[in-house]
């Protein structure tokens, strides 16, 4: 417990609490996992920058005791790209929600992946636009209801990690708010990875998503997340039809490819 208390003292702006999130929201669990991952990855507090977009999860930046940059909707990765190139020694964690990252920010997401710039994207996926009250996002599964899809969305959803892989991301991992230890480990591994890393964190939104889709309360949603979760090692031994409706967790891929900022400075003779 002593370690956790110390982390709370050092890495959280305790005076800014309580947070704005609804009861039962998973954002607090993901934020706590991020804090522990930063500690685990041995980052110097001075070098850590938290960049975020707009949405519920992006408000985490204000509660974290680092240099924090709360940007415009969808643009967090583009701000982060500029900052990383200006100061390659900094360690950037970019918190985005599912709509922020994959809809309005989709272009920046694929191009950050293509460049393989060393940014650590943590995408908090609650399948919904929470802050605006529950509209469907590109990560809302087909058929699920939202205020802008009252009869269930007809649109197909992205597989975020495969989208990133196709665009050139070199590290992709997934976990859920129901598995905070694993989430912590994955964010920490993403942080140590040189290049563009994406950690997708599935997170319950009982208020805007759970109620609309009759998924029960926060505990039910977390239990359900845990039950659906299959470790990537086990999934590789399973048939595809058995994996429908499952969440594959763990490090989905990790490749060793030159990192952009390092390559840039080497190319201009400053690396």
């Amino acid at each position, binding site marked *: 417990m002593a370690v956790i208390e110390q982390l709370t003292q050092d890495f959280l702006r305790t005076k800014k609490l309580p947070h704005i999130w609804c009861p039962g929201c998973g954002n607090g669990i993901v934020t706590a996992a991020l804090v522990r991952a930063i500690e685990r990855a041995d980052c110097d*507090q*001075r070098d850590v920058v938290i960049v975020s977009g707009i949405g519920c999860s992006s408000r985490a930046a204000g509660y974290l005791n680092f*240099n924090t940059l709360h940007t*415009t909707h969808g643009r967090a990765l583009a701000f982060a790209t500029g*900052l990383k190139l200006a100061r390659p020694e900094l360690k950037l964690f970019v918190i985005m929600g599912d709509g922020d990252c994959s809809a309005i920010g989709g272009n920046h997401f694929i191009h950050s992946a293509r460049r393989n710039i060393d940014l650590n994207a943590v995408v908090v996926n609650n399948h919904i636009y929470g802050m605006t009250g529950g509209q469907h996002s590109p990560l809302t599964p087909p058929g699920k209801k939202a205020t802008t899809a009252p009869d269930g969305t007809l649109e197909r959803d992205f597989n975020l990690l495969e989208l990133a892989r196709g665009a050139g991301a070199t590290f992709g991992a997934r976990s859920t708010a129901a598995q905070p230890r694993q989430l912590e480990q994955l964010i920490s591994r993403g942080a140590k990875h040189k290049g563009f890393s994406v950690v997708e964190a599935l997170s319950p939104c009982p208020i805007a998503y759970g109620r609309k889709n009759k998924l029960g309360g926060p505990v039910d949603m977390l239990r359900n997340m845990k039950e659906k979760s299959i470790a990537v090692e086990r999934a590789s031994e399973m048939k595809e039809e058995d994996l429908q409706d499952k969440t594959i967790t763990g490090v989905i891929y990790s490749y060793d490819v030159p990192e952009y900022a390092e390559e840039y400075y080497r190319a201009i003779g400053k690396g």
Partner: protein
Amino acid sequence: MPETKPVLMQGNEACAEGAIRAGVRFYAGYPITPSTEIAEKMAARLPGLGGVFIQMEDEIASMAAVIGASIGGMRTLTATSGPGFSLKQENIGYAIMAEIPCVVVNVQRMGPSTGVPTAPSQGDVMQARWGTHGDHPIIVFSPASVYETYYLTIAAVNLSQKLRQPVILLLDEVIGHMREKVFIPEGSKLMVEKSSDKVPADWKPYDEKGLTPLVPFGFGHYYHVTGLFHDQYGFPTGEPSQVERALDRIHEKLDKYRDEVVLTNYIGHKEPRVVIVTYGCTVRSARAVVKKAYWQNRQPVGLLSLQTLWPFPAKEIEALARQADVIIVPEMNMGQIFGEVERYARGEAEVISLNRYDGEMISPDQISEKMGRWLS
């Protein structure tokens, strides 16, 4: 200041060279006519200076990257034209709100929309003022020559740093693509002090007492930067008195340094009856008119050229209106600065607009003709 021999360069090149001279070492942009030469020049020059050039995926990202790099402590610039300027507006607003210095160049082309990409225009004057949402302050410079482009770019970078405020450079296609001689002075007196991470112990990123330096990220000052209304430490607030105070704060810094912000130049008769007020490439035609009417024929004619369009040079117009019978406002749009001139003339002088919006420059003859009956 000792001057070297003249160099022949294009307005867009002068903008890039001026920026480099002022210490800009980060450029993010997206290709668009007629501003592309600025990006090309930066791509060629910055790596050799240890700087960063990056072509981003779109205009929005370019603006964001520039702000990110500024927070990292670099001097930054991005350039675009018409449609790209529209796309940059959201993050320009962010830079104003978060008080992040940066320079945004818009080489104006004929709009609306895709318009005539290769034709000159001065149609973005009001967009430069009000393009981003909310009640924001803005600084906009508009050079009338290649030489002025070089110096106004330097001024823009320095002012942006000093006031922690984005500065817009509104070029037009004529100035951007014209080649002219520029005298590049020796020495390094064109730059303000570099920003430093050494600040007093009671440093606050948004000190309510007034201007405070931006301390780059990564030096142990764990402050928050947001586009939300914020307190002195950068943390979000919706408390009405703090919101009002924060909005006043970003406006007051421009008022306080008005002498450095509002730049105009008057030539001609000491007691003019007819004054031409204009900016950008149109100044060149107006200058030809004044040369003939005043220097040759001693007619009571003058020209006020506006290097600064916003904040609008209201005092200068008020003073002129008290002297002159008429103010003629030629501009390559349907009358954007005209309305401002009329407002600050306050009925003391007649204000007449002269507009052209066919993608061609306003000629000296057009101005002379408009002026004619007031001098007979």
